[in-house]
């Protein structure tokens, strides 16, 4: 029997998801033996024309990481969708918009300005910023154009499955690949990770006081973090109550609160708003003044509660 054809593609991502695949180390060999990799721009030399030449639907599964924030990525994922049986959104950016989605809280001009002109480490005396089209002695040059907002993959093409995480843990990749190769898959649209929250499995949960109340919030660097106590009980924002488990609480075990990269659990759409609802139960405050004083200690609520999921929030981006 011919080996199933598999492809990997990347869009707006940091490379961490590619790294996660490579980090499978010897386990990747098992995967490589079982499949035929037909397209993987990060690791192997294939071109867009190679994909165009493939028969429609001939790739069994393509794993796509990264958010979609350029016209080129949009065009590529449409092409890949046509050529693939299954599309798996791989990693937080593809699943939820991820870190590139934070850009949706500002506008394109400000991003270009900050990245190319005003950044403290920039040296750019000619004030060059990338343009979709620019003249050159050899004719007009074309670059991919940045979109106004970063999108999750399923906001651009139909997605069959999601593997969450920034980046995706090894176990989830191997489980997903095994499920796909053995045809042992849950219903279309499923996130291939547990349905419970991080709090459900977190070791620190048992340190939570009977009635947990918070009277001031701290950012992780502002206090000495206890290694055993629940972060919320220390006044540190932890997204564990509303974040899907399956990462083995790796940040928490490294003494950092959960930032929410696995996204919401099933039946929750808007992770950040859900977190607001959950957090409100914990305030040690009953009057307008008391509540306001606590809210004042939270910096950047949108960027904190939706660190990975602005694109997949109800609003999706800053409106104007």
């Amino acid at each position, binding site marked *: 029997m011919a080996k199933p054809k598999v492809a990997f593609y990347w869009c707006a991502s940091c490379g961490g998801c590619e790294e996660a695949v490579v980090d499978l180390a010897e386990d990747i060999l098992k995967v490589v033996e079982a499949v035929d990799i037909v397209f993987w721009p990060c690791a192997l030399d294939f071109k867009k024309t190679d994909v165009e030449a493939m028969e429609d639907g001939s790739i069994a599964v393509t794993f796509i990481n990264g958010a979609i924030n350029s016209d080129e990525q949009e065009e590529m994922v449409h092409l890949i969708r046509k050529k693939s049986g299954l599309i798996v959104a791989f990693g937080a950016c593809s699943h939820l918009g991820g870190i590139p989605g934070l850009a949706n809280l500002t506008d394109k001009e400000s991003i270009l300005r900050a990245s190319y002109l005003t950044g403290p480490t920039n040296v750019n005396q000619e004030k060059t910023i990338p343009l979709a089209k620019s003249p050159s002695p050899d004719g007009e040059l074309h670059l991919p154009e940045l979109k106004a907002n970063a999108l999750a993959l399923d906001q651009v093409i139909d997605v069959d499955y999601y593997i969450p995480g920034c980046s995706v843990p090894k176990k989830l990749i191997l489980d997903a690949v095994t499920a796909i190769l053995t045809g042992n898959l849950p219903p279309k649209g499923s996130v291939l990770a547990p349905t419970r929250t991080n709090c459900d499995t977190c070791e620190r949960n048992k340190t939570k006081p009977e009635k947990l109340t918070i009277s001031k919030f701290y950012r992780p660097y502002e206090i000495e973090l206890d290694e055993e106590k629940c972060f919320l009980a220390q006044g540190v924002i932890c997204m564990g109550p509303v974040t899907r488990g399956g990462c083995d609480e790796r940040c928490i075990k490294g003494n950092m609160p959960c930032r929410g990269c696995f996204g919401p659990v099933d039946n929750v759409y808007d992770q950040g708003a859900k977190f607001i609802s959950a957090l409100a139960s914990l305030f040690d405050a009953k009057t307008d003044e008391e509540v306001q004083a606590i809210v004042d200690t939270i910096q950047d609520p949108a960027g904190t*509660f939706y660190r990975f999921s602005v694109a997949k929030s109800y609003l999706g981006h800053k409106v104007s």
Partner: protein
Amino acid sequence: MSSDKSGFEPRIVAFLCNWCSYTGADLAGTARMKYPANVRTIRVMCSGRVDAQFVMKAFAEGADAVLISGCHTPSDCHYQEGNFKALRRYYLLKKMLPQFGIEPERLRLEWISAAEGDKFQEVCTEYTEQIKKLGPSPVKKGVKNG
């Protein structure tokens, strides 16, 4: 944003708790007190039942403003703590909404008891006027991404 004052009829979604505010609204109705048709009421069991997701979804779907109304604090909530949850969510949302480009005035919290039909009428009338002045929500229908 003070555009379109002529003929702009805001859509205001009002989440009213069953035990106080909804009964208050009902009283306004039975007493034939007029309040603007701009306010579309949704009955919830308690103001503490109003998940912040409901508010964000209402804005995403084109509400020009959202009103949450529950029983008077500190002690009138039928479930004791619900109105405190509403109060905290309200301040959290108010701080966050501008980051999404939504003016904080588009969210309002009120405590209206079952006997305060007149207060319900006043709040609705006054809030409708305020939102008319503020103009339509910056969310264009359907929230266009990309």
